[in-house]
């Protein structure tokens, strides 16, 4: 078990920067998930921690030791690869024992450690098999086993579940979480799947184009996304975004439809008449009676999921609100498709117009220019 300090780390391939000035302190035993779209630099970050990729700038320390110049084998880490990277010509036992043999452990101890790992991972019956004789889930376990037998101070995972089918993925996700809890080993886990990220992480690093946009607990990231990117990336279905303008007195937001939403306080540093991006989670749009409605949605498509129903549609102008001279000038863009998450299996017809409201607390405001959260 070790802490990991990443201080001002940067990486470029030639002249192409891939990771910009990243800072994060990972505590002992913490489960950190790096999440972001494909190509944002997650694997590169992980591989720099592993020592498979040179660090262009900054410093990485594992425990108290700066590891920038250390070989992977001297960093006391274990890594689980996306394709598992099992040695195809070795049995499951030999795959797990390989690192221990190199470390020069006595035979008896190797046997014990592998047996213990095999018992935890339910691989005891497969120790003599070759990787190609195993199912995807079993191979994944062998890869995990290879990591845990060495009892390293850090686990690194690079999308270890992305080659499994959906059901197995959910199961393995739980197993990884339990295993990490019981071993208490500091872990860095890379994934592009935000559900995986939310369920596994003690803390998330949300990355976008080589920049850590937010580092926080899953719930904090969900409820207070630091940027428009994070807001859109975390949460499924994704947050709805609308162009809006702060009214002169700062008490309301004017929408392009002419509707107005009440704010509970004036956002910091925002002048009257300024444009903002408004974010609304699909579950924060509430069905209501016509008099309380501040928005209206024209239903275009309904997806009943069982417990929830997703309603897709477009905002439509409020009752006569659009004709109020002052507000029509605010119309700057057309509203896009919106998604609502409504509980239960309520029935909606296409073309139906739903009256909606949103509480001031559930509004997320982002700077229209740089996408930073406004508080």
């Amino acid at each position, binding site marked *: 078990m070790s802490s990991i300090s990443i201080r001002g780390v940067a990486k470029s391939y030639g002249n192409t920067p891939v990771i910009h000035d990243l800072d994060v302190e990972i505590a002992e035993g913490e489960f950190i998930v790096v999440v972001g779209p494909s190509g944002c630099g997650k694997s590169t970050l992980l591989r720099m921690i592993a020592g498979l990729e040179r660090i262009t700038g900054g410093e990485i320390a594992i425990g108290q030791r700066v590891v920038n110049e250390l*070989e992977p084998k001297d960093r006391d880490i274990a890594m689980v690869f996306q394709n598992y990277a099992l040695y195809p010509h070795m049995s499951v036992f030999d795959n797990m024992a390989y690192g221990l043999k190199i470390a020069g452990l006595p035979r008896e101890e190797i046997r014990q450690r592998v047996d213990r790992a095999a018992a935890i991972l339910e691989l005891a019956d497969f120790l003599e098999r070759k990787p190609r004789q195993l199912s995807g889930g079993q191979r994944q376990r062998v890869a995990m086993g290879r990591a845990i037998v060495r009892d390293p101070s850090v686990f690194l995972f690079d999308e270890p579940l992305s080659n499994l089918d959906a059901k197995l993925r959910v199961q393995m996700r739980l197993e990884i979480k339990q295993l990490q809890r019981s071993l208490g080993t500091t872990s860095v886990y890379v994934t592009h799947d935000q559900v995986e990220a939310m369920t596994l992480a003690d803390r998330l690093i949300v990355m976008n184009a080589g920049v850590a946009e937010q580092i926080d607990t899953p719930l904090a990231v969900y409820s207070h996304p630091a940027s428009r990117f994070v807001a859109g990336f975390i949460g499924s279905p994704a947050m709805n975004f609308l162009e809006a303008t702060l009214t002169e007195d700062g008490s309301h937001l004017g929408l392009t439809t002419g509707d107005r939403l009440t704010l509970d306080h004036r956002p910091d540093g925002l002048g009257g008449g300024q444009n903002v991006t408004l974010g609304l989670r699909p579950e924060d749009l509430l069905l209501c009676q016509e008099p309380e409605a501040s928005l209206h949605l024209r239903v275009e498509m309904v997806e009943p999921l069982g417990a929830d129903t997703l309603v897709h549609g477009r905002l439509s102008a409020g009752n006569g609100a659009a004709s109020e001279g002052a507000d029509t000038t605010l119309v700057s863009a057309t509203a896009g498709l919106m998604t609502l998450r409504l509980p239960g299996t309520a029935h909606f017809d296409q073309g139906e117009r739903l009256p909606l409201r949103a509480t001031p607390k559930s509004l997320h405001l982002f700077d229209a220019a740089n996408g930073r959260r406004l508080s």
Partner: protein
Amino acid sequence: MQKRVTFRHLTLPYLFILPQLAITIVFFIWPAGEAIYQSLLRQDAFGLNTRFVGFENFERLFADPLYIDTLWRTLGFSVSVTLLSMLSALLFAVMADHVIRGATTYKTLLIWPYAVAPAIAGVLWWFLFNPSVGILAYLLQGLGYDWNPFLDGDDAMILVVIASAWKQVSYNFLFFLAGLQAIPRSLIEAAAIDGAGPVKRFWSIVFPLLSPTTFFLLVVNVVYAFFDTFGTIHATTSGGPGQSTTTLIYKVFNDGFIGLNYGSSAAQSVVLMIIVIGLTVVQFRYIERRVHY
């Protein structure tokens, strides 16, 4: 599931394979049949009389200490050529696998020798190692080694081994490089994290994973050394000095075309034919099965 083309007419498929069949019959089956037939005959010294002698040519052959010597020499030659060409090719391939800049140029240069005709390769090395004009011979003499492949049988053997191996390096290189590049990078990285250094990684991961390629090349190279080195030997040493670089294939030529002993020469061809058939069987059997890990 295999994809299959079905023909409505029975003659059409035969027409398709006819050209290939004709070539095979004219250039392979017929000469082979002729060789087998000739190996059972014997001509008198003046070529006037030919009679059927059964397996007598073969009996004489294996009773002849010169032939047995040649057999051992050929084995030694083949093993040397195979080892030398495969080891250098593996070394080049491992290095090329690490080259990123200029990789294409490097590979192209290594492939060139394959396009050189065997006789030209022989002449090339003949010049390089010529005791009076060759630069390599000059270097060896400079080192105090009394190099002379025209007089010394061992020197001559070294010369033909190098010349023959050189030609085959390209071919082996291509296969080894392809084999190396088919090994997922993450395997090597996993081994590095597991604590294996470069040498350990090579012998415990890379080399075992190359074994299908290695086995395939082993057979191909032995076949090459046995049968395809005639031109190289002919252009460098002509089998000499004495018999010191005469391999089985060279002896077939020597006894048949120079010594005009058709019966014996044909019998030797048949022996070679059996060897190549044996090697091919080994290759087909094992390449399909054993080499899978």
